[in-house]
């Protein structure tokens, strides 16, 4: 299981916006760092530019997929997609499009 630094940036910004107490928000972000396996570097950005241009996605979405592909992820869970897709070798699904049982079974398969 891996998390992009981008996801932690979004998490922390959202927690602050939702007025979650700062010490808790910081703990959540710090804790999430344990799941970061790969940085957002030049290779990731180059890959994301390619995805952005080819698939006409939003930039932040392209960056997330580019990171997942570079980090060797085969499955990306994101709420930013309406229907499942495979981009740059990464299968992308929304965890909210499945029932909890279906999701667990999907992840175990």
């Amino acid at each position, binding site marked *: 299981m891996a998390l992009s630094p981008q996801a932690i940036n979004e998490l922390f*910004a959202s927690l602050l*916006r*939702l007025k*979650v*107490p700062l010490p*808790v928000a910081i703990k959540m972000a710090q*804790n999430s760092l344990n*799941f970061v396996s790969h940085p957002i570097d030049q290779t990731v950005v180059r890959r994301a530019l390619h995805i952005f*241009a080819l698939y006409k996605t939003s930039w932040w979405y392209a960056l997330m997929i580019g990171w997942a592909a570079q980090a060797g992820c085969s499955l990306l869970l994101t709420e930013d997609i309406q229907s499942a897709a495979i981009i740059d070798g990464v299968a992308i699904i929304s965890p909210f499009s499945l029932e909890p049982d279906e999701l667990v079974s999907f992840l175990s398969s």
Partner: protein
Amino acid sequence: MLKNLTITLPEETLRAVRIAAAHDGISMSKWLGRLVERSVDVNPEATQAARVETQRQALAQFLALPKYQLTDKNGKAPSKEWMNDREGLRRFERPDLHQGLAQSDEIAPLRSVAEPSPEPWDYGAFPTSDK
């Protein structure tokens, strides 16, 4: 069991290694050995097992943190647009904010960095080295 390895380095690199090793109070051989060990995963299974255990503990700690009701009265989560909105980037919508660099003639046409780019973006329009 330790094995010997002879390496060749430029004079200035060797000098830098000597200084770094002296700074750490160890021999150059040991300093270089540590550098290699950090770069090469000698036991990937153990590394992966340790990573999974660290993540398991991190997830447990995360879930043990206080919980907050972040949905609205209808149980709806905040929209992505609202979450990602950056008021500070919409100065042109906030006349009460100081206009700052917008006073400059040079950037006057740029009303906001948050304006959408023209769509669709044509990948083929990228400048290339081909003549």
